[in-house]
Protein backbone atom coordinates (compact mmCIF):
# COMPACT_ATOMS: atom_id res chain seq x y z
CA UNK A 1 0.00 0.00 0.00
CA UNK A 2 1.42 3.31 -0.88
CA UNK A 3 0.00 6.76 -1.23
CA UNK A 4 1.66 10.03 -1.87
CA UNK A 5 1.16 12.82 0.59
CA UNK A 6 0.09 15.85 -1.38
CA UNK A 7 1.62 19.19 -0.56
CA UNK A 8 -1.64 20.75 0.44
CA UNK A 9 -2.50 18.02 2.95
CA UNK A 10 0.82 17.72 4.71
CA UNK A 11 1.75 19.80 7.69
CA UNK A 12 5.43 19.18 7.36
CA UNK A 13 7.11 20.45 4.27
CA UNK A 14 8.56 17.39 2.62
CA UNK A 15 9.37 17.13 -1.04
CA UNK A 16 6.57 15.46 -3.02
CA UNK A 17 7.16 11.76 -3.47
CA UNK A 18 9.63 11.46 -0.62
CA UNK A 19 7.14 9.40 1.38
CA UNK A 20 6.29 6.45 -0.83
CA UNK A 21 5.54 3.71 1.63
CA UNK A 22 3.33 4.32 4.58
CA UNK A 23 3.16 0.80 5.93
CA UNK A 24 5.62 -1.39 7.80
CA UNK A 25 6.05 -5.10 7.28
CA UNK A 26 6.95 -7.09 10.35
CA UNK A 27 7.68 -10.72 10.98
CA UNK A 28 5.82 -12.32 13.84
CA UNK A 29 7.46 -15.64 14.51
CA UNK A 30 8.38 -18.40 13.81
CA UNK A 31 10.35 -17.99 17.03
CA UNK A 32 8.45 -15.49 19.07
CA UNK A 33 7.24 -15.77 22.67
CA UNK A 34 3.69 -14.77 21.73
CA UNK A 35 3.12 -17.38 19.04
CA UNK A 36 3.45 -20.24 21.56
CA UNK A 37 4.70 -22.56 18.89
CA UNK A 38 6.52 -22.39 15.63
CA UNK A 39 4.39 -20.46 13.17
CA UNK A 40 5.02 -17.30 11.26
CA UNK A 41 2.85 -14.29 10.63
CA UNK A 42 3.97 -11.69 8.14
CA UNK A 43 1.98 -8.60 8.94
CA UNK A 44 1.70 -5.31 7.19
CA UNK A 45 1.09 -2.53 9.64
CA UNK A 46 -0.18 0.97 9.17
CA UNK A 47 1.15 2.53 12.33
CA UNK A 48 -0.16 0.04 14.85
CA UNK A 49 -3.08 -1.16 12.73
CA UNK A 50 -2.92 -4.44 10.88
CA UNK A 51 -3.51 -4.06 7.15
CA UNK A 52 -2.86 -7.63 6.13
CA UNK A 53 -1.50 -10.79 7.68
CA UNK A 54 -0.11 -13.81 5.92
CA UNK A 55 0.54 -17.02 7.77
CA UNK A 56 3.31 -19.45 7.07
CA UNK A 57 2.98 -22.82 8.74
CA UNK A 58 4.64 -26.17 8.41
CA UNK A 59 7.73 -25.60 10.52
CA UNK A 60 7.21 -28.82 12.43
CA UNK A 61 5.57 -30.85 9.71
CA UNK A 62 6.47 -34.50 10.31
CA UNK A 63 4.52 -36.27 7.54
CA UNK A 64 2.41 -38.36 9.93
CA UNK A 65 -0.06 -39.23 7.20
CA UNK A 66 2.69 -40.73 5.11
CA UNK A 67 4.37 -42.55 7.99
CA UNK A 68 1.01 -44.02 9.03
CA UNK A 69 0.69 -45.75 5.66
CA UNK A 70 3.47 -48.11 6.68
CA UNK A 71 2.54 -48.79 10.27
CA UNK A 72 0.18 -51.27 11.86
CA UNK A 73 -2.71 -49.64 13.73
CA UNK A 74 -1.26 -49.80 17.23
CA UNK A 75 1.94 -48.04 16.12
CA UNK A 76 -0.04 -45.04 14.89
CA UNK A 77 -1.20 -44.10 18.40
CA UNK A 78 2.13 -42.45 19.30
CA UNK A 79 1.85 -40.34 16.15
CA UNK A 80 -1.52 -38.98 17.26
CA UNK A 81 0.02 -37.91 20.60
CA UNK A 82 2.04 -35.38 18.76
CA UNK A 83 -0.86 -33.61 17.08
CA UNK A 84 -2.37 -31.58 19.90
CA UNK A 85 0.19 -32.30 22.56
CA UNK A 86 -1.68 -30.27 25.18
CA UNK A 87 -4.44 -32.88 25.19
CA UNK A 88 -2.74 -35.97 23.82
CA UNK A 89 -5.11 -38.53 25.42
CA UNK A 90 -8.09 -37.20 23.43
CA UNK A 91 -6.15 -37.84 20.22
CA UNK A 92 -5.22 -41.34 21.41
CA UNK A 93 -8.82 -42.15 22.28
CA UNK A 94 -10.05 -40.70 19.01
CA UNK A 95 -7.69 -43.00 17.16
CA UNK A 96 -8.69 -46.06 19.21
CA UNK A 97 -12.35 -45.28 18.62
CA UNK A 98 -11.71 -44.98 14.89
CA UNK A 99 -9.99 -48.38 14.82
CA UNK A 100 -12.77 -49.91 16.90
CA UNK A 101 -15.37 -48.51 14.53
CA UNK A 102 -13.54 -50.02 11.58
CA UNK A 103 -12.98 -53.37 13.28
CA UNK A 104 -16.42 -53.50 14.85
CA UNK A 105 -15.17 -53.85 18.42
CA UNK A 106 -17.60 -53.10 21.22
CA UNK A 107 -15.97 -51.91 24.41
CA UNK A 108 -17.22 -52.69 27.92
CA UNK A 109 -18.93 -49.92 29.88
CA UNK A 110 -16.05 -49.57 32.31
CA UNK A 111 -13.69 -48.79 29.45
CA UNK A 112 -16.04 -46.10 28.19
CA UNK A 113 -16.24 -44.41 31.58
CA UNK A 114 -12.52 -44.60 32.20
CA UNK A 115 -11.91 -43.15 28.76
CA UNK A 116 -14.31 -40.32 29.47
CA UNK A 117 -12.43 -39.51 32.68
CA UNK A 118 -9.14 -39.42 30.78
CA UNK A 119 -10.55 -37.36 27.94
CA UNK A 120 -12.19 -34.80 30.20
CA UNK A 121 -8.99 -34.44 32.20
CA UNK A 122 -7.23 -33.79 28.92
CA UNK A 123 -9.81 -31.17 28.02
CA UNK A 124 -9.23 -29.43 31.34
CA UNK A 125 -5.46 -29.55 30.81
CA UNK A 126 -5.89 -28.10 27.33
CA UNK A 127 -8.28 -25.32 28.31
CA UNK A 128 -6.43 -24.28 31.43
CA UNK A 129 -3.25 -23.80 29.43
CA UNK A 130 -5.05 -21.81 26.78
CA UNK A 131 -6.89 -19.56 29.22
CA UNK A 132 -3.96 -18.94 31.50
CA UNK A 133 -1.70 -18.19 28.53
CA UNK A 134 -4.32 -15.70 27.41
CA UNK A 135 -4.02 -14.04 30.81
CA UNK A 136 -0.26 -14.21 30.56
CA UNK A 137 -0.28 -12.49 27.19
CA UNK A 138 -2.52 -9.78 28.58
CA UNK A 139 0.14 -9.11 31.19
CA UNK A 140 -1.00 -11.18 34.18
CA UNK A 141 1.43 -14.00 34.85
CA UNK A 142 -0.13 -14.79 38.25
CA UNK A 143 -3.07 -16.78 36.91
CA UNK A 144 -0.78 -18.77 34.68
CA UNK A 145 1.34 -19.83 37.65
CA UNK A 146 -1.71 -20.64 39.80
CA UNK A 147 -3.25 -23.18 37.45
CA UNK A 148 0.02 -24.73 36.31
CA UNK A 149 0.13 -26.81 39.50
CA UNK A 150 -3.11 -28.46 38.47
CA UNK A 151 -1.85 -29.40 35.07
CA UNK A 152 0.92 -31.14 36.96
CA UNK A 153 -1.74 -32.95 39.01
CA UNK A 154 -3.46 -34.10 35.82
CA UNK A 155 -0.16 -35.28 34.41
CA UNK A 156 0.42 -37.26 37.59
CA UNK A 157 -2.91 -39.02 37.15
CA UNK A 158 -1.94 -39.96 33.59
CA UNK A 159 1.41 -41.10 34.87
CA UNK A 160 -0.34 -43.51 37.23
CA UNK A 161 -2.52 -44.78 34.40
CA UNK A 162 -0.02 -45.19 31.58
CA UNK A 163 3.41 -44.16 32.82
CA UNK A 164 3.93 -41.08 30.69
CA UNK A 165 2.92 -37.48 30.96
CA UNK A 166 2.91 -35.34 27.85
CA UNK A 167 2.84 -37.68 24.87
CA UNK A 168 0.86 -40.33 26.60
CA UNK A 169 0.16 -43.18 24.18
CA UNK A 170 -2.62 -44.00 26.61
CA UNK A 171 -4.96 -46.96 26.12
CA UNK A 172 -5.00 -49.64 23.48
CA UNK A 173 -7.43 -50.72 20.78
CA UNK A 174 -10.25 -52.25 22.80
CA UNK A 175 -9.50 -50.69 26.16
CA UNK A 176 -6.59 -49.95 28.45
CA UNK A 177 -3.28 -51.74 28.75
CA UNK A 178 -3.81 -52.07 32.50
CA UNK A 179 -6.42 -51.19 35.05
CA UNK A 180 -6.42 -47.89 36.93
CA UNK A 181 -4.77 -48.24 40.32
CA UNK A 182 -5.99 -46.81 43.62
CA UNK A 183 -3.44 -44.00 43.58
CA UNK A 184 -4.90 -42.75 40.30
CA UNK A 185 -8.37 -42.60 41.80
CA UNK A 186 -7.10 -40.96 44.96
CA UNK A 187 -5.28 -38.32 42.93
CA UNK A 188 -8.39 -37.81 40.86
CA UNK A 189 -10.53 -37.26 43.96
CA UNK A 190 -8.00 -34.79 45.30
CA UNK A 191 -7.98 -32.96 41.97
CA UNK A 192 -11.77 -32.75 41.89
CA UNK A 193 -11.82 -31.15 45.33
CA UNK A 194 -8.94 -28.73 44.86
CA UNK A 195 -9.23 -27.60 41.27
CA UNK A 196 -12.67 -25.91 41.50
CA UNK A 197 -11.28 -23.67 44.24
CA UNK A 198 -8.31 -22.73 42.08
CA UNK A 199 -10.56 -22.16 39.09
CA UNK A 200 -12.75 -19.84 41.15
CA UNK A 201 -9.67 -17.93 42.20
CA UNK A 202 -8.47 -17.82 38.60
CA UNK A 203 -11.82 -16.41 37.53
CA UNK A 204 -11.73 -13.67 40.15
CA UNK A 205 -8.37 -12.67 38.71
CA UNK A 206 -9.57 -12.35 35.15
CA UNK A 207 -13.26 -12.63 34.39
CA UNK A 208 -14.33 -9.24 35.73
CA UNK A 209 -10.89 -7.68 35.60
CA UNK A 210 -11.19 -4.25 33.96
CA UNK A 211 -7.84 -4.46 32.20
CA UNK A 212 -8.41 -7.98 30.96
CA UNK A 213 -11.91 -7.14 29.73
CA UNK A 214 -10.68 -4.07 27.89
CA UNK A 215 -7.99 -6.12 26.25
CA UNK A 216 -10.33 -8.92 25.15
CA UNK A 217 -13.85 -7.62 24.60
CA UNK A 218 -14.71 -6.93 20.98
CA UNK A 219 -11.34 -8.22 19.82
CA UNK A 220 -10.95 -10.88 17.17
CA UNK A 221 -14.69 -11.45 16.85
CA UNK A 222 -16.38 -13.49 14.16
CA UNK A 223 -20.04 -14.04 13.32
CA UNK A 224 -21.58 -17.51 13.57
CA UNK A 225 -22.14 -17.66 9.82
CA UNK A 226 -18.55 -16.76 8.96
CA UNK A 227 -17.23 -19.13 11.60
CA UNK A 228 -19.19 -22.01 10.07
CA UNK A 229 -18.02 -21.08 6.60
CA UNK A 230 -14.45 -21.08 7.84
CA UNK A 231 -14.89 -24.51 9.39
CA UNK A 232 -14.55 -23.42 13.01
CA UNK A 233 -15.27 -26.08 15.61
CA UNK A 234 -14.92 -26.47 19.34
CA UNK A 235 -14.81 -23.59 21.82
CA UNK A 236 -14.05 -21.07 19.08
CA UNK A 237 -17.24 -21.93 17.21
CA UNK A 238 -19.30 -22.14 20.39
CA UNK A 239 -18.06 -18.68 21.39
CA UNK A 240 -19.62 -17.41 18.16
CA UNK A 241 -22.97 -18.85 19.26
CA UNK A 242 -23.26 -22.23 17.54
CA UNK A 243 -23.93 -25.06 19.98
CA UNK A 244 -22.07 -27.69 18.00
CA UNK A 245 -20.28 -30.19 20.21
CA UNK A 246 -19.42 -33.65 18.87
CA UNK A 247 -20.01 -35.12 22.35
CA UNK A 248 -23.60 -33.92 22.24
CA UNK A 249 -24.63 -34.38 18.61
CA UNK A 250 -22.68 -37.55 17.79
CA UNK A 251 -22.15 -39.23 21.15
CA UNK A 252 -19.28 -41.69 21.29
CA UNK A 253 -17.96 -43.60 24.28
CA UNK A 254 -21.35 -43.54 26.10
CA UNK A 255 -21.44 -39.73 26.27
CA UNK A 256 -25.19 -39.99 25.71
CA UNK A 257 -25.58 -41.20 29.32
CA UNK A 258 -24.01 -38.07 30.74
CA UNK A 259 -25.57 -34.79 31.64
CA UNK A 260 -23.63 -31.69 30.72
CA UNK A 261 -24.24 -28.26 29.27
CA UNK A 262 -22.73 -26.92 26.09
CA UNK A 263 -21.78 -23.31 26.83
CA UNK A 264 -22.13 -20.82 23.99
CA UNK A 265 -21.05 -17.23 23.56
CA UNK A 266 -22.60 -14.48 21.47
CA UNK A 267 -19.99 -12.38 19.71
CA UNK A 268 -17.22 -14.90 19.10
CA UNK A 269 -14.59 -12.53 20.44
CA UNK A 270 -11.58 -13.29 22.61
CA UNK A 271 -13.51 -12.69 25.83
CA UNK A 272 -16.28 -15.09 24.81
CA UNK A 273 -13.74 -17.78 24.00
CA UNK A 274 -12.23 -17.30 27.43
CA UNK A 275 -15.62 -17.63 29.13
CA UNK A 276 -16.60 -20.68 27.05
CA UNK A 277 -13.38 -22.48 27.93
CA UNK A 278 -13.76 -21.68 31.62
CA UNK A 279 -17.30 -23.03 31.64
CA UNK A 280 -16.23 -26.13 29.73
CA UNK A 281 -13.69 -26.92 32.41
CA UNK A 282 -16.49 -26.88 34.98
CA UNK A 283 -18.65 -29.09 32.76
CA UNK A 284 -15.74 -31.48 32.34
CA UNK A 285 -15.46 -31.85 36.09
CA UNK A 286 -19.20 -32.47 36.24
CA UNK A 287 -18.78 -35.24 33.67
CA UNK A 288 -15.87 -36.79 35.58
CA UNK A 289 -17.93 -36.86 38.79
CA UNK A 290 -20.77 -38.61 36.96
CA UNK A 291 -18.33 -41.06 35.43
CA UNK A 292 -16.90 -41.91 38.87
CA UNK A 293 -20.41 -42.46 40.17
CA UNK A 294 -21.26 -44.71 37.22
CA UNK A 295 -18.06 -46.68 37.72
CA UNK A 296 -19.08 -47.30 41.32
CA UNK A 297 -22.48 -48.59 40.18
CA UNK A 298 -21.08 -51.25 37.83
CA UNK A 299 -21.68 -54.80 39.01
CA UNK A 300 -20.05 -58.19 38.50
CA UNK A 301 -17.72 -58.70 35.58
CA UNK A 302 -18.48 -55.24 34.22
CA UNK A 303 -16.91 -53.66 37.29
CA UNK A 304 -13.45 -55.07 36.64
CA UNK A 305 -13.17 -55.48 32.88
CA UNK A 306 -10.86 -52.88 31.40
CA UNK A 307 -10.54 -54.13 27.83
CA UNK A 308 -12.62 -55.82 25.16
CA UNK A 309 -12.03 -59.41 24.04
CA UNK A 310 -10.11 -58.80 20.83
CA UNK A 311 -7.11 -61.14 20.79
CA UNK A 312 -6.20 -60.00 17.26
CA UNK A 313 -5.47 -56.47 18.45
CA UNK A 314 -5.13 -56.49 22.22
CA UNK A 315 -1.83 -57.76 23.62
CA UNK A 316 -2.26 -60.78 25.93
CA UNK A 317 -0.83 -60.70 29.50
CA UNK A 318 2.87 -61.47 29.62
CA UNK A 319 2.67 -64.51 31.93
CA UNK A 320 0.39 -66.22 29.41
CA UNK A 321 2.66 -65.28 26.52
CA UNK A 322 5.46 -67.25 28.14
CA UNK A 323 3.36 -70.30 28.96
CA UNK A 324 0.53 -70.63 26.40
CA UNK A 325 1.03 -71.16 22.67
CA UNK A 326 -2.09 -69.31 21.53
CA UNK A 327 -1.21 -66.17 23.45
CA UNK A 328 2.33 -66.42 22.15
CA UNK A 329 1.02 -66.47 18.58
CA UNK A 330 -1.25 -63.47 19.13
CA UNK A 331 1.57 -61.60 20.81
CA UNK A 332 3.84 -62.18 17.82
CA UNK A 333 1.18 -61.35 15.29
CA UNK A 334 0.36 -58.05 16.99
CA UNK A 335 3.93 -56.96 17.66
CA UNK A 336 5.06 -57.81 14.14
CA UNK A 337 2.05 -55.93 12.78
CA UNK A 338 0.55 -58.93 11.04
CA UNK A 339 -3.06 -58.42 12.02
CA UNK A 340 -5.16 -57.93 8.90
CA UNK A 341 -7.45 -54.90 8.84
CA UNK A 342 -10.79 -55.34 7.07
CA UNK A 343 -11.22 -53.25 3.92
CA UNK A 344 -13.42 -50.22 4.29
CA UNK A 345 -13.42 -46.54 4.88
CA UNK A 346 -14.42 -44.81 8.03
CA UNK A 347 -14.63 -41.27 9.29
CA UNK A 348 -14.75 -40.85 13.04
CA UNK A 349 -14.70 -37.62 14.99
CA UNK A 350 -14.20 -36.80 18.64
CA UNK A 351 -14.44 -33.48 20.42
CA UNK A 352 -10.81 -32.54 20.89
CA UNK A 353 -9.49 -29.63 22.90
CA UNK A 354 -9.82 -27.41 19.85
CA UNK A 355 -12.88 -28.91 18.25
CA UNK A 356 -13.79 -31.69 15.92
CA UNK A 357 -10.78 -33.95 15.61
CA UNK A 358 -11.52 -36.30 12.75
CA UNK A 359 -9.80 -39.42 11.51
CA UNK A 360 -10.48 -40.47 7.94
CA UNK A 361 -9.13 -43.96 7.42
CA UNK A 362 -9.19 -45.88 4.15
CA UNK A 363 -8.20 -49.52 4.42
CA UNK A 364 -7.68 -51.76 1.40
CA UNK A 365 -7.47 -54.94 3.44
CA UNK A 366 -3.75 -54.76 4.12
CA UNK A 367 -2.10 -54.58 7.51
CA UNK A 368 -1.61 -50.83 7.45
CA UNK A 369 -3.99 -48.03 6.47
CA UNK A 370 -4.08 -47.31 2.75
CA UNK A 371 -4.65 -43.66 3.53
CA UNK A 372 -5.08 -41.86 6.79
CA UNK A 373 -6.08 -38.24 7.05
CA UNK A 374 -6.34 -36.24 10.24
CA UNK A 375 -8.89 -33.47 10.35
CA UNK A 376 -7.02 -31.06 12.59
CA UNK A 377 -9.30 -28.30 13.88
CA UNK A 378 -6.40 -25.88 14.44
CA UNK A 379 -5.24 -26.10 10.85
CA UNK A 380 -8.70 -25.33 9.59
CA UNK A 381 -9.59 -22.34 11.71
CA UNK A 382 -6.19 -20.66 11.60
CA UNK A 383 -6.88 -19.67 8.00
CA UNK A 384 -9.48 -17.21 9.28
CA UNK A 385 -6.78 -15.39 11.19
CA UNK A 386 -6.38 -12.57 8.71
CA UNK A 387 -10.07 -11.82 8.85
CA UNK A 388 -10.00 -11.89 12.65
CA UNK A 389 -7.16 -9.40 13.04
CA UNK A 390 -7.60 -7.08 10.07
CA UNK A 391 -7.96 -3.52 11.25
CA UNK A 392 -7.07 -4.25 14.86
CA UNK A 393 -3.99 -3.24 16.82
CA UNK A 394 -0.88 -5.34 17.00
CA UNK A 395 -1.45 -6.00 20.70
CA UNK A 396 -4.85 -7.47 19.80
CA UNK A 397 -3.13 -9.85 17.40
CA UNK A 398 -1.31 -11.38 20.34
CA UNK A 399 -4.55 -11.83 22.28
CA UNK A 400 -6.39 -13.29 19.29
CA UNK A 401 -3.58 -15.72 18.69
CA UNK A 402 -3.61 -16.88 22.30
CA UNK A 403 -7.38 -17.24 22.38
CA UNK A 404 -7.53 -19.48 19.31
CA UNK A 405 -5.36 -22.03 21.13
CA UNK A 406 -3.08 -22.59 18.16
CA UNK A 407 -0.97 -25.69 18.62
CA UNK A 408 1.76 -25.97 16.02
CA UNK A 409 1.88 -29.74 16.30
CA UNK A 410 -1.76 -30.07 15.41
CA UNK A 411 -1.55 -27.53 12.62
CA UNK A 412 1.37 -29.13 10.86
CA UNK A 413 0.66 -32.82 11.48
Amino acid at each position, binding site marked *: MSNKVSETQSNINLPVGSIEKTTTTINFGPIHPATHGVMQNIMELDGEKVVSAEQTIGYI*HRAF*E*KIAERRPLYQITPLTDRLNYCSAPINNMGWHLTCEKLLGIKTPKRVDYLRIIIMELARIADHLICNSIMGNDAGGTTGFLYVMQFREDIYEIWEEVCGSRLTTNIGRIGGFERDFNDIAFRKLDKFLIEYPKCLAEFETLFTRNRIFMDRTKGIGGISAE*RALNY*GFTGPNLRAAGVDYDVRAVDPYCSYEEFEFDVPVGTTGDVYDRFLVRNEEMKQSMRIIRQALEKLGNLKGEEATKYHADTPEYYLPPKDKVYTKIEELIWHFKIVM*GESEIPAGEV*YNAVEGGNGELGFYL*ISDGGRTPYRL*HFRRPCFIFY*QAFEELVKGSMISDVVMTMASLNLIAGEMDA
Partner: protein
Amino acid sequence: MALTNKTIQEKLQEKFGEQVYAFEEPYGLLTFVADKDINLKVLYFLHQDEELNFVFLTDLCGVHYPNNKGKELGVVYHLHNLEQNIRVRMKVFTDVEKPEVFTATGIFMAANWMERETFDFFGINFLGHPNMKRILNVEEMDYSPLRKEFPVEDQSRVDKDDEMFGRDVIRAF
Protein backbone atom coordinates in the same frame (compact mmCIF):
# COMPACT_ATOMS: atom_id res chain seq x y z
CA MET B 1 -39.00 -34.31 8.26
CA ALA B 2 -35.83 -36.01 9.10
CA LEU B 3 -33.28 -36.15 6.36
CA THR B 4 -32.10 -39.64 5.49
CA ASN B 5 -29.39 -41.02 3.25
CA LYS B 6 -32.11 -42.25 0.91
CA THR B 7 -33.69 -38.83 0.39
CA ILE B 8 -30.27 -37.25 -0.18
CA GLN B 9 -29.45 -39.88 -2.78
CA GLU B 10 -32.80 -39.41 -4.53
CA LYS B 11 -32.44 -35.64 -4.60
CA LEU B 12 -28.93 -35.86 -6.02
CA GLN B 13 -29.90 -38.40 -8.66
CA GLU B 14 -32.93 -36.38 -9.64
CA LYS B 15 -30.83 -33.26 -10.08
CA PHE B 16 -27.65 -34.69 -11.63
CA GLY B 17 -28.75 -38.02 -13.10
CA GLU B 18 -25.89 -40.19 -14.33
CA GLN B 19 -23.21 -37.73 -13.27
CA VAL B 20 -23.40 -38.86 -9.65
CA TYR B 21 -22.90 -42.55 -9.10
CA ALA B 22 -21.38 -45.30 -6.96
CA PHE B 23 -23.62 -44.64 -4.00
CA GLU B 24 -22.77 -46.70 -0.93
CA GLU B 25 -23.02 -46.38 2.82
CA PRO B 26 -19.87 -47.58 4.59
CA TYR B 27 -20.51 -47.37 8.34
CA GLY B 28 -23.72 -45.45 7.68
CA LEU B 29 -22.09 -42.52 5.90
CA LEU B 30 -23.51 -41.83 2.45
CA THR B 31 -20.66 -41.87 -0.05
CA PHE B 32 -20.85 -41.12 -3.75
CA VAL B 33 -18.69 -40.18 -6.69
CA ALA B 34 -19.37 -37.15 -8.86
CA ASP B 35 -17.93 -36.21 -12.23
CA LYS B 36 -15.08 -33.82 -11.64
CA ASP B 37 -16.55 -31.21 -13.98
CA ILE B 38 -19.63 -30.78 -11.86
CA ASN B 39 -18.06 -30.92 -8.39
CA LEU B 40 -18.89 -27.29 -7.73
CA LYS B 41 -22.46 -27.67 -8.92
CA VAL B 42 -22.99 -30.60 -6.58
CA LEU B 43 -21.34 -28.82 -3.65
CA TYR B 44 -23.35 -25.69 -4.32
CA PHE B 45 -26.56 -27.72 -4.53
CA LEU B 46 -25.78 -29.51 -1.27
CA HIS B 47 -24.96 -26.20 0.38
CA GLN B 48 -27.85 -24.12 -0.91
CA ASP B 49 -30.77 -26.54 -1.10
CA GLU B 50 -33.09 -25.74 1.79
CA GLU B 51 -33.73 -29.32 2.69
CA LEU B 52 -30.16 -30.60 2.28
CA ASN B 53 -28.51 -27.60 3.96
CA PHE B 54 -24.95 -28.95 4.14
CA VAL B 55 -23.42 -25.72 5.37
CA PHE B 56 -20.30 -27.15 6.94
CA LEU B 57 -17.27 -28.49 5.10
CA THR B 58 -15.77 -30.84 7.64
CA ASP B 59 -12.86 -32.16 5.69
CA LEU B 60 -11.21 -32.17 2.31
CA CYS B 61 -8.34 -34.44 1.43
CA GLY B 62 -6.71 -36.25 -1.44
CA VAL B 63 -6.15 -39.92 -2.13
CA HIS B 64 -4.05 -41.71 -4.74
CA TYR B 65 -4.97 -44.95 -6.53
CA PRO B 66 -2.12 -45.58 -8.99
CA ASN B 67 -3.84 -48.57 -10.61
CA ASN B 68 -7.05 -46.70 -11.35
CA LYS B 69 -6.08 -45.63 -14.86
CA GLY B 70 -7.35 -42.22 -15.88
CA LYS B 71 -8.78 -41.61 -12.42
CA GLU B 72 -5.70 -41.93 -10.28
CA LEU B 73 -6.14 -38.97 -7.98
CA GLY B 74 -9.19 -38.39 -5.87
CA VAL B 75 -10.46 -35.52 -3.77
CA VAL B 76 -12.70 -36.46 -0.87
CA TYR B 77 -15.12 -33.94 0.63
CA HIS B 78 -16.87 -34.52 3.93
CA LEU B 79 -19.91 -32.31 4.39
CA HIS B 80 -22.04 -31.96 7.49
CA ASN B 81 -25.60 -30.83 7.97
CA LEU B 82 -25.38 -29.50 11.52
CA GLU B 83 -29.11 -29.09 12.11
CA GLN B 84 -30.08 -32.64 11.22
CA ASN B 85 -26.67 -34.03 12.13
CA ILE B 86 -26.11 -35.99 8.97
CA ARG B 87 -22.88 -36.30 7.05
CA VAL B 88 -22.16 -37.01 3.41
CA ARG B 89 -18.95 -37.91 1.62
CA MET B 90 -18.34 -36.89 -1.97
CA LYS B 91 -15.46 -37.99 -4.14
CA VAL B 92 -14.22 -36.70 -7.45
CA PHE B 93 -11.47 -38.36 -9.44
CA THR B 94 -9.02 -36.84 -11.86
CA ASP B 95 -6.27 -37.94 -14.20
CA VAL B 96 -2.76 -37.94 -12.80
CA GLU B 97 -1.44 -36.52 -16.08
CA LYS B 98 -3.63 -33.45 -15.81
CA PRO B 99 -4.76 -33.24 -12.18
CA GLU B 100 -7.20 -30.36 -12.20
CA VAL B 101 -10.29 -29.87 -10.08
CA PHE B 102 -12.33 -26.72 -9.54
CA THR B 103 -11.81 -25.01 -6.22
CA ALA B 104 -14.51 -24.95 -3.55
CA THR B 105 -13.22 -21.77 -1.92
CA GLY B 106 -16.09 -19.79 -3.44
CA ILE B 107 -18.57 -21.85 -1.41
CA PHE B 108 -16.56 -22.75 1.69
CA MET B 109 -13.76 -20.52 2.97
CA ALA B 110 -12.56 -23.54 4.93
CA ALA B 111 -11.53 -25.19 1.67
CA ASN B 112 -8.73 -22.69 1.15
CA TRP B 113 -5.97 -24.29 3.20
CA MET B 114 -7.27 -27.81 2.84
CA GLU B 115 -6.99 -27.47 -0.93
CA ARG B 116 -3.51 -26.06 -0.56
CA GLU B 117 -2.62 -29.07 1.57
CA THR B 118 -4.02 -31.41 -1.08
CA PHE B 119 -2.05 -29.55 -3.75
CA ASP B 120 1.02 -29.80 -1.59
CA PHE B 121 0.81 -33.55 -1.04
CA PHE B 122 -0.87 -34.84 -4.20
CA GLY B 123 -0.18 -32.16 -6.77
CA ILE B 124 -3.85 -31.67 -7.53
CA ASN B 125 -4.26 -28.23 -9.03
CA PHE B 126 -7.41 -26.47 -7.87
CA LEU B 127 -8.52 -24.20 -10.68
CA GLY B 128 -9.52 -20.75 -9.53
CA HIS B 129 -7.94 -21.02 -6.09
CA PRO B 130 -6.84 -17.58 -4.83
CA ASN B 131 -3.44 -18.68 -3.51
CA MET B 132 -2.42 -22.04 -4.94
CA LYS B 133 0.95 -22.74 -3.37
CA ARG B 134 2.46 -25.26 -0.99
CA ILE B 135 1.51 -24.94 2.65
CA LEU B 136 3.28 -27.52 4.83
CA ASN B 137 6.28 -28.42 2.70
CA VAL B 138 8.99 -26.11 1.47
CA GLU B 139 8.15 -24.22 -1.68
CA GLU B 140 11.22 -25.50 -3.54
CA MET B 141 9.91 -29.07 -3.41
CA ASP B 142 9.18 -30.42 -6.89
CA TYR B 143 7.24 -33.61 -6.18
CA SER B 144 4.06 -34.68 -4.39
CA PRO B 145 5.13 -36.72 -1.38
CA LEU B 146 1.89 -38.51 -0.49
CA ARG B 147 1.58 -40.15 -3.90
CA LYS B 148 2.13 -43.87 -3.77
CA GLU B 149 5.26 -43.87 -5.92
CA PHE B 150 7.22 -42.44 -3.01
CA PRO B 151 7.93 -45.14 -0.45
CA VAL B 152 8.39 -44.35 3.22
CA GLU B 153 10.99 -46.99 3.90
CA ASP B 154 14.45 -47.17 2.48
CA GLN B 155 14.10 -49.36 -0.60
CA SER B 156 17.29 -51.28 0.13
CA ARG B 157 15.48 -52.96 3.01
CA VAL B 158 14.15 -56.36 2.06
CA ASP B 159 12.43 -57.21 5.34
CA LYS B 160 9.61 -54.74 4.77
CA ASP B 161 8.21 -55.48 1.33
CA ASP B 162 4.55 -55.26 0.44
CA GLU B 163 3.96 -58.90 1.21
CA MET B 164 4.76 -58.14 4.84
CA PHE B 165 1.91 -55.67 4.84
CA GLY B 166 -0.62 -58.16 3.54
CA ARG B 167 -0.79 -56.96 -0.04
CA ASP B 168 -0.17 -59.34 -2.95
CA VAL B 169 -0.39 -56.69 -5.61
CA ILE B 170 2.85 -54.85 -5.91
CA ARG B 171 1.93 -51.27 -6.49
CA ALA B 172 3.77 -48.58 -8.36
CA PHE B 173 6.70 -48.52 -5.96
